[in-house]
């Protein structure tokens, strides 16, 4: 391709971004833009798939029929989200198969929150309320992201996740209206999930290597710290409303800023969890690898059968 053409293409791309016109799969896009999207969308897809595990862990122990059904539906939605997101990623010319292999080898990441264990029923509340809440905070702006297929997938994902977030919060409300044992269970879940939820927004802006470029490309619309602050502002009153205490002694309302100040995040823990040393990293990946290995013969059978059918039809 000639130098001139490239310049023209880049200009057309930049113009679209500027005019908020979506980039579509067949459009020219810079390589780095494509790579960033592949990384981000696949990471997002993996998070949905790995995210089934901590909640899947409580379906068989859900305390009543309604909660069991709601939790099943939620985990099913997550599998669905994984499916659209892999499809969106595939429009960028990267295969689901390869992407999953990268997850299993540790090359691709997923949200670090799923490396924490779900230990009680209240964790189903905390995960829905905080983890889906943080995810929405991240994702609502993505409905306006510059890449069309990703933006459209996010519209659907966000709609379902805000439903999940409400369900999670409702679990917490029910527990806080319950017995002392239930209240303690809810508080304990918040204690364990609060800080990891704040970490979900990624490193602070000062440390974040990708943020500015992603904002320029209109892949991201807010910085990590902006989103984190929005999340804190939204969550603290929700906790207070039902009598939960945020496990942060430094948390207080800053009248001047009109926002909450909050304590320092333990970035060493974040780093360790992201790099594979969290409480459940090994188990999560092992579970996914096992699912893949145990399913190998099933996928082979499906392919072999489809092949046989095709031959039969042709003859």
């Amino acid at each position, binding site marked *: 391709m000639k130098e001139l053409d490239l310049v023209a293409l880049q200009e057309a791309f930049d113009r679209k971004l500027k005019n908020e016109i979506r980039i579509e799969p067949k459009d020219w896009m810079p390589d780095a833009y494509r790579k960033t999207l592949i990384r981000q969308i696949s990471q997002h897809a993996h998070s949905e798939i790995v995210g089934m595990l901590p909640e*899947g862990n409580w379906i068989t*122990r859900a305390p009543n*029929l309604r909660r069991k059904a709601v939790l*099943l539906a939620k985990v099913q939605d997550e599998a669905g989200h994984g499916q659209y997101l892999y499809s969106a990623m595939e429009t960028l010319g990267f295969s689901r198969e390869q992407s999953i292999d990268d997850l299993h080898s540790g090359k691709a990441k997923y949200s670090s929150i799923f490396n924490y264990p779900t230990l009680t029923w209240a964790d189903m509340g905390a995960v829905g309320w905080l983890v889906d809440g943080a995810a929405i905070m991240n994702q609502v702006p993505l409905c306006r992201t510059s890449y069309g297929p990703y933006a459209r997938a996010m519209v659907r994902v966000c709609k379902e996740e805000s439903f999940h977030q409400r369900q999670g919060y409702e679990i917490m409300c029910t527990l806080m209206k319950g017995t002392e044992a*239930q209240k303690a269970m809810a508080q304990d879940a918040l204690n364990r999930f609060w800080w990891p939820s704040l970490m979900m927004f990624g490193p602070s802006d000062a440390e974040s290597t990708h943020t500015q470029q992603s904002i320029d490309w209109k892949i991201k619309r807010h910085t990590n710290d902006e989103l984190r602050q929005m999340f804190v502002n939204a969550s603290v009153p929700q906790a207070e409303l039902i009598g939960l205490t945020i496990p942060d002694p430094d948390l207080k309302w800053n009248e001047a800023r009109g926002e909450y100040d909050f304590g320092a995040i333990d970035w060493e823990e974040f780093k360790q969890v992201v790099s594979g040393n969290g409480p459940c990293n090994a188990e999560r990946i092992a579970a996914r690898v096992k*699912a893949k290995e145990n*399913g190998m013969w*099933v*996928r082979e*059978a499906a392919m072999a059968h489809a092949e046989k059918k095709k031959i039969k039809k042709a003859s």
Partner: protein
Amino acid sequence: MKNNLFTYTLRIADDSLILGQRLSEWCGHGPVIEEDIALTNIALDLIGQATSLLEYAAKVEGKGRTADDLAFLRFENEYLNAQLIEQKNGDFGVTIVRQWIFDTFRLSFYEALQHSSDSQLAAIAEKSLKETKYHWKHSSEWMIRLGDGTEESHLRVNEALISLWKFSDELFFMDEVDKELIAAGIAIDLETLRPAFNERINYVLNEATLEVPDSTWKLNGGRLGRHTEHFGHLIAEMQYMQRAYPNMEW
């Protein structure tokens, strides 16, 4: 009659409840994402059916128990599902064979039950029949894919079929509970379902290049509350929250 209707409804409810519970164990561990979605969806339908049926059973019993009480607070030998239902998931082939035998039975069963003179059961059957058609299509397609897939998949699904077939006859179990209700047009004479059941079984097995296993000694007991050794472990897990934290709202 009220007692019999209670028992009859529980037997149907428990098949849905326990199979829903078993399928839930697959969540996040399926062979492809599409099957995580499909198996979870079937589990969801079954838990929904169980809920309607247990609500009705609780109402029929009239002792103030709720659907949740019935689901989570009975002793092992008060659950009345067929033994097929509670068998462990095994590999995907075992899960599919278990599902398919059950779906095939359920299809004929709900087709008949939607005409029950008991309007509640008829309504539940009508709604469940729609779901069951989809379940049966799904499990039948997999039977065919696995049976007529690779050599390995044929062997595996055939082995699963042999190990589970001995539980199939129990689906047709009837006793005094059924007798009076059949006379009243409420319950289904299960013997009348055999031709349709056999036809569907044979049709799919034929496509799947599989055969009905030699019938051996038939096992039963589930409808009377006698289960297999796996069942107690399933119950321990399923009941944990209600047992450890009694009398609370969730």
